[in-house]
């Protein structure tokens, strides 16, 4: 019995200590964007938010060259608007307001409300009120698990343990900071167009109709209203998609119209880009939804030009483009 008690006491103590170490490790790893935001060390005149289609498809350095605005890429894998809103809260709590806030939106994100939300992003900051709120809503089990030392890390150890270890390593070498990212930008490692789209098309030769989740649409509305209430200037845009893929999406025009109407109602300009025809050429993509490095460079430069020409004071946003 004595041994058992000793074992349980050691387990509890070690688990608590390990959890603190991992929390600290993650807080030092700015590749983990919520850590970077919570550090209060970020400054950006242009702040980009959105899914992996921002994280990997918007190079802040190129955008800075084109616009002269100090830029940070706050894109996060997963297309949940709740991610973006919680991160925006965190940004505004710890860092100065950006001059312009860019949000990448697409009809792609109006479906499957339960997908595209990754709880592991918030594990080490569950006590932040807006993170706690969003996790309580999306994944209450994680909140319950967080009361048992280390269990929250065990649930997501695949991602979080290496990231925390990377953070500790980074802290030991140079202090907190980014390792792989550059101002939040995570360059795509893929170059060649893979076969996922062709497989998808083979399964859907007649195209597909995507459902519209009004909850998601409302989420965008909440995001715009919060940003407006904070006095932020918001610009929405849609990054390029492969045209072959767009042609399969049979109700894209209707979904795009709903986004347009939402943006108009909230007074947010919605840029429809891709005038250089990136979407026509597979060479710029590694799958139907993601540009490769070459495509990203061209697209970021194009977005910068659009911003200068149209959105900056005196300019007007482009008119909604009809769906392809």
């Amino acid at each position, binding site marked *: 019995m004595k*041994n058992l008690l000793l074992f349980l006491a*050691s387990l509890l103590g*070690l688990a608590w200590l390990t959890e603190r170490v991992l929390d600290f490790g993650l807080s030092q790893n700015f590749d983990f964007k919520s850590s970077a935001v919570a550090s209060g060390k970020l400054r950006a005149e242009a702040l980009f938010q959105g899914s992996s289609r921002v994280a990997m498809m918007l190079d802040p350095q190129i955008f800075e060259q084109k616009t002269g605005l100090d830029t940070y890429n706050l894109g996060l894998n997963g297309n949940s608007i709740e991610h973006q809103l919680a991160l925006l809260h965190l940004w505004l709590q710890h860092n100065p307001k950006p001059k312009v806030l860019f949000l990448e939106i697409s009809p792609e994100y109006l479906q499957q409300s339960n997908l595209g939300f990754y709880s592991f992003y918030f594990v080490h900051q569950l006590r932040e009120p807006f993170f706690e709120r969003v996790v309580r809503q999306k994944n209450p089990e994680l909140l319950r698990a967080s009361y048992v030392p280390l269990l929250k890390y065990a649930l997501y150890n695949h991602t979080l343990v290496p990231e925390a270890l*990377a953070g500790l390593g980074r802290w030991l070498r140079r202090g907190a900071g980014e390792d792989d990212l550059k101002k939040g930008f995570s360059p795509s490692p893929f170059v060649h167009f893979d076969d996922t789209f062709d497989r998808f098309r083979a399964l859907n030769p007649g195209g597909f109709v995507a459902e519209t989740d009004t909850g998601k649409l409302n989420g965008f509305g909440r995001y715009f209203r919060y940003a407006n209430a904070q006095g932020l200037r918001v610009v929405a845009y849609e990054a390029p998609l492969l045209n072959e893929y767009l042609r399969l999406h049979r109700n894209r025009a209707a979904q795009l119209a709903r986004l347009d109407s939402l943006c108009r109602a909230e007074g947010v300009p919605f840029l429809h880009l891709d005038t250089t025809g990136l979407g026509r050429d597979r060479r710029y993509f590694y799958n139907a939804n993601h540009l490769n490095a070459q495509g990203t460079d061209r697209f970021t430069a194009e977005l910068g030009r659009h911003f200068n020409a149209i959105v900056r004071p005196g300019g007007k946003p482009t008119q909604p483009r009809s769906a392809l």
Partner: protein
Amino acid sequence: MLFNSLNFLVFFPTVVVLHFLLPHRWRWAMLLGASCYFYMAFVPAYILILFATIVIDYFAGLWIENAQGVRRKRLLIISLVSNLGILAFFKYLGFFTENIADLLKAIDLPYPAALATAASNKVFVGVLTLFGQNSVSSYTEAMSILPIGLSFHTFQAMSYTIEVYRGNQRAERHFGIYALYVMFFPQLVAGPIERPQNVLHQFHEKKTFNATRALDGLRWIYWGLFKKMVIADRLSQFVDPVFNDPNPEKYGALATAAATVVFAIQIYCDFSGYSDVAIGTAKVMGYKLMENFRRPYLATNIQVFWSRWHISLSTWFRDYLYIPLGGNRVSRGRRYFNLAVVFLVSGLWHGAAWTYLVWGALHAVFNLGTVALRESGRVRLPERWWADALGMVVTFGLVSFAWIFFRAHSLHDALTLVRTLGTWRGWSVEWNSLEYWTLRTGDPKPPYRMLFSGIGLLLLGLGDYLIEKKRDRLPGPTLRMLRPALYAAMVIFFLLFAVFDSGKQFIYFQF
């Protein structure tokens, strides 16, 4: 029930506590009930199949013991045919019917081919419907819901009647204990395939709780789960992309070779991990199961490999197939033939597919080659370390190559992978393909995980070893403090590095 599930975390301590709380005369009933529950966690109705084989073999054992001469032999044959019949029906009917149908089509008899397929499909689906499997329309759809571990417990049951027939084992009078011999939950679904002489008597013996033995058992369980959940399940992320979708354009020779080697490690950790948990689980309760793996990848030739890999199966084939066929006491040609038969049957035991048959055939070729070389006396390596090292590398290479056929979904896939291995497209292309492969695993920052888990593993293992080795020299209070702290650290390590979210089955469950 899976060993790597939360259910087992509740199930096992409950069984252990009950086992030692109950009086000896009721333990068999509790263990049998627990084993039934364990098995029924997969597909409950299939326990009826197990029950049928248990009833047949129980009575066969009693009757064989009392019979003499031809009648004794006839009873054994009836028992074996019953066991193999069930195995053949559930596991091989589809394979044989489809191949016969293909043969009939090839000789321009499409009508009988279609008839044979339709008829056997109908019988098969009808029987599965009796077991509540209504969603299946053909045997090709049924692979994932077939009785789990069927080949394991069938072979264990057969070893009982054969040993009774040979006079090496007295027939078990107690029906419940015989049923427990077949169904003992630690080794029910993936072995080790036990022999009655080793296990049956243990169920009659009164077991008392022994803390040292229980601790040792828990240590086996820990390392078994470690091999499975920390190593094998992680490695599967590297193996699956290549083997589930063989595509020379995506994964070149280098990536395919790497995935093949990784699979060799994965399957070892997966299967030996299961055996370790089985041995440890039984050990905590005071039962001793046979060793199933003995560092097989350190074997210096393929024959040594087979004396160390899945020992309970290879010795089963040796005792109940190779020796009855004549063993080593026959002419050289016949001996070679016997050896080939054993490996082909071993391949077929693993699964009803050409891939397994080719895997068995490859091992037959490797083994025959080794025997022939040795007997010819042409190749003699000196007894030096480098010769052993060379032997290990060659053996590992051959075994890994054969695993391609074992893991591939079809013969076509396996041949595509083999062709890819033989097509070198230059360093830069191959390197790109290797990079693409590692990226596709979705494993973020693998060097950190590898590095830290490797160091952690080494420290924990070393700590465990040192405490065990120096226990007599360590002062009592220090030892008392060190042990719990070390075990707590082992649990923490496990929580940080095991795969919890996939609930992956053990590879050998499908057999």
